[in-house]
């Protein structure tokens, strides 16, 4: 492992270290909300996915959604975390029109998941560990729409009551890149586990970033929390802005107020939302409408047994089982669907060749059209078919690239394309011999010169390829040329 230079903010008084902890809100993948049974779906008509419970009608009571609990347990197991067999729901009380009950049901004191750890890989392949403090389940609030009317605010309660997992890390990150790598790895994990779709654009995964700065080795500084940052790029930009702001204040002799700040992605700056003094007093207390959440250890074991292969394990296996490079394995495990696609195509084929097509040709085509592997217009079996044609010398790898283009264009199965377009490479010695003979007869000077300059054989190869439309079997052609030219 290479030694990495630590990330530092350069101030007037010297270098500053940035200390970062993240609270990631991941929407639990579920058809129904956490306590109401109402549907969940992005882009539905405003207020079309709201039950009387979500709308806080009198006498309505919450009932926990077992599936959401299972998803939180699954996330906890994926983070190698302690699963708390007894946890409690609390009410966080505050008034806002998008919070119909006047309180959010959350887990304040006793969350469902305790301490865990996530191994994060940086872009350069080095890794570091982030300790997870807890995961708790909570309800999302609705959405206030301020831009529908100049004077009025509209409220859409479709999100109200949707299940969120808040995944809280320890302040274990020291650079904007590491924070982004953490979110990326976490996103990858929750997608593997199927507990969150990780779609940051839809707000299904968003982060609050706790930022503080200190002189290297000094005790922790006062932190500010930046709310609701919803892309990897913004996370990094927000951290850089905020850390720099804090360094400037400290170097001017000031002190940092612990406060909640909002990231403005247009101006690329953070702004104060509320300070500690006027922070809400949320008056947390145990929700008397819900019993303690008690999990059956056998059920937790069942969930554990049903966990899919996780990214780290998959990477190691792809390398050992298929002999892939670390790079190819890394590309393939970025997404479970990608690795699945590869494995389906690689069955019984030259795995490196398959990885080559999956990680390069296909990946770049899909990325260009913003498609995932499970949406690929080319099924995995066709990649296998293409590689098989190469392996059996029916086509050359050069021709294969052309065949791939036609496959992408929807022209059919690789074998059909080769057949239809007559792309089968010429291994027929007789046909090649006559082409070579004709060539030597027409170019006696070149045939004589090649004896002194063997690399000039390339010219003959090129000419025969040209004559056969690129279909000559390169190995057969080479052997024949050498014999005929007396090399």
């Amino acid at each position: 492992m290479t030694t990495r230079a630590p990330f530092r903010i350069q101030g007037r008084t010297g270098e500053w270290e940035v200390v970062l902890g993240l609270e990631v809100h991941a929407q639990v993948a579920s058809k129904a909300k956490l306590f109401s049974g109402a549907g969940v779906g992005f882009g539905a008509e405003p207020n079309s996915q709201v039950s009387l419970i979500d709308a806080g009608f009198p006498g309505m009571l919450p009932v926990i959604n077992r599936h959401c609990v299972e998803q939180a347990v699954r996330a906890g197991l994926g983070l190698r975390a302690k699963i708390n067999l007894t946890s409690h729901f609390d009410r966080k009380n505050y008034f806002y029109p998008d919070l119909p009950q006047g309180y959010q049901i959350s887990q304040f004191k006793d969350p469902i998941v305790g301490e865990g750890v996530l191994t994060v890989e940086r872009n350069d392949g080095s890794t570091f560990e982030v300790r997870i403090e807890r995961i708790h389940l909570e309800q999302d609030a609705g959405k206030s729409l301020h831009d529908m009317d100049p004077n009025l605010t509209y409220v859409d309660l479709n999100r109200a009551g949707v299940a969120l997992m808040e995944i809280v890390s320890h302040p274990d990150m020291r650079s904007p890149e590491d924070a982004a790598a953490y979110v990326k790895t976490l996103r990858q994990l929750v997608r593997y586990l199927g507990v969150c779709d990780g779609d940051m654009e839809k707000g299904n995964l968003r982060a609050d970033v706790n930022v503080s700065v200190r002189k290297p080795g000094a005790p922790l500084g006062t932190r500010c929390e930046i709310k609701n940052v919803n892309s990897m790029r913004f996370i990094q930009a927000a951290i850089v802005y905020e850390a720099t702001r804090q360094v400037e204040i400290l170097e001017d002799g000031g002190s940092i107020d612990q406060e909640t700040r909002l990231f403005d992605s247009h101006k690329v700056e953070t702004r104060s939302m509320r300070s500690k003094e006027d922070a809400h007093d949320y008056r947390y207390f145990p929700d008397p409408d819900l019993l303690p959440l008690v999990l059956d250890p056998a059920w937790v074991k069942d969930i554990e047994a049903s966990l899919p292969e996780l990214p780290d394990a998959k990477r190691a296996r792809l390398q050992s089982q298929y002999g892939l490079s670390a790079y190819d394995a890394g590309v393939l495990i970025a997404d479970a669907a990608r690795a699945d696609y590869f494995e389906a195509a690689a069955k019984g084929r030259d795995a490196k060749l398959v990885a080559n097509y999956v990680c390069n040709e296909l990946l770049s085509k899909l990325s260009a059209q913003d498609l995932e592997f499970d949406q690929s217009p080319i099924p995995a079996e066709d990649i296998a078919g293409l590689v098989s044609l190469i392996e059996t010398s029916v086509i050359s790898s050069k021709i294969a690239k052309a065949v791939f283009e036609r496959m992408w264009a929807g022209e059919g199965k690789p074998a059909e394309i080769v057949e239809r377009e007559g792309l089968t490479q010429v291994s027929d010695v007789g046909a090649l011999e006559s082409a070579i003979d004709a060539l030597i007869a027409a170019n006696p000077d070149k045939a004589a010169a090649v004896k002194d300059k063997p690399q000039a054989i390339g010219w003959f190869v090129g000419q025969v390829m040209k004559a056969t439309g690129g279909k000559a079997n390169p190995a057969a052609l080479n052997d024949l040329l050498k014999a005929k030219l007396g090399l």
Partner: protein
Amino acid sequence: MSDLTQLTLKGALEGLSAGTFSSHELTEAFVAAIEAANPALNAYVLATPEKALAAAKASDARRAKGEAGPLEGAPLGIKDLFCTEGVRTTAGSKILGSFVPPYESTVTANLWRDGAVMLGKLNMDEFAMGSSNETSYFGPVANPWRAKNSNQTLTPGGSSGGSASAVAADLCLAATASDTGGSIRQPAAFTGTVGIKPTYGRCSRFGMVAFASSLDQAGPIAKTVEDAALMLTSMASHDAKDSTSLDIEIPDFASFVGASVKGMKIGVPEDYRIDGLPAEIAKLWDEGVAWLKAAGCEIKSVRLPHTRYALPAYYIIAPAEASSNLARYDGMRFGLREDGGSLSEVYEASRASGFGPEVKRRILIGAYVLSAGYYDAYYVRALKVRRRIAEDFTQAFADVDAILTPTTPSAAFPVGEKQSDPVAMYLNDIFTVTTNLAGLPGLSLPGGVDQRGLPLGLQLIGRPLEEGRLFSLASVMEKASDFRPRPERWW
């Protein structure tokens, strides 16, 4: 036909079954009685005669087809705390003054499933906060009972004042009620009726406007012990829509009525002999003990040493939960909304205008005891007291099968007397709050009258889920007391 209204629920069901009268005839009698009496008693905040008569007709048709349910055709009053689909439900508050729920509470749905007929919605203290029915936005309820040679209007107690008054004045066969700190039992004691708060979780809270979720429990107020048992059998159910609902079989509670209580051990808690307990109440208590002894019970003294902390703990826990439960009344989606220049002003104006002074007092107390810096000193300590009180009962119930106490420290008091003294008002609940804190069943039955001729109640407290035993004991006492309370009609 007015004599029909004087029937017990059991008597009416027998008459209906025998075809002596129809549900329609019976309901008509109640509709007329309500119309005549309600201006004086104010027990109903909303009478629904057309719906009642239509429901009675439908009930008669079901009976004719041989599809009679256990409460088929019985006209009942419903405390306005229970949401009734398409029928205004206010919880006695201005803030819900025009709220018409699009759903039915589980308790009332169970009653309709069993064939009962709704006469209307009954008055109550606002959000069930009160012990005299004087905090209702719809005005106080009059107790049908008056002291001998007095014209003074007395309260029926609260918060289920409308339920108790209506049952006592024959304005329904029986009524639903709810009890958070004594709101079924104290009004029952004040009106010579029978009320039971079952074990927490017996009745679903779904569709019941919440006051303090960990304490609220529905139960009936009825004319006799057997009637109360019939009502509770219908009202109780396991309900997947209420996470605190008990998934446990509901027995036929009426089958316990009249059963032998021989050999049962009855505890008499010395800690309930509080200073200033009126001699008449102490005497009635002794009489109750004597009745049970005569029926073959063994009487034992028990200690419930944390009783004196119960009321303070209750007045922390209940307001704390209420302050959060009542946050949804914000003028945004239903109920009263007052205009304002900003969001905060709309909240403030709507809640200032929509809630009465007692509700505001409890919201403020509740918000205070939950706030940072006070939470441990008040709320957490109150929870500890709550556990001690539950432990007191657990220990006592190791020695005895049930506990006998007075229901209230006094008989019904005049309207207006305690309104300006909240602490005096809160003392009404001193014998009843403990069972709410411990989640235990508590039954109040009329034991006799005081010198002024006002009814007094005795309370039986049981182990969790032993309502059946309470019905057996209460029916023995009902018989022994030979007390058939009936107020003299002045309205």
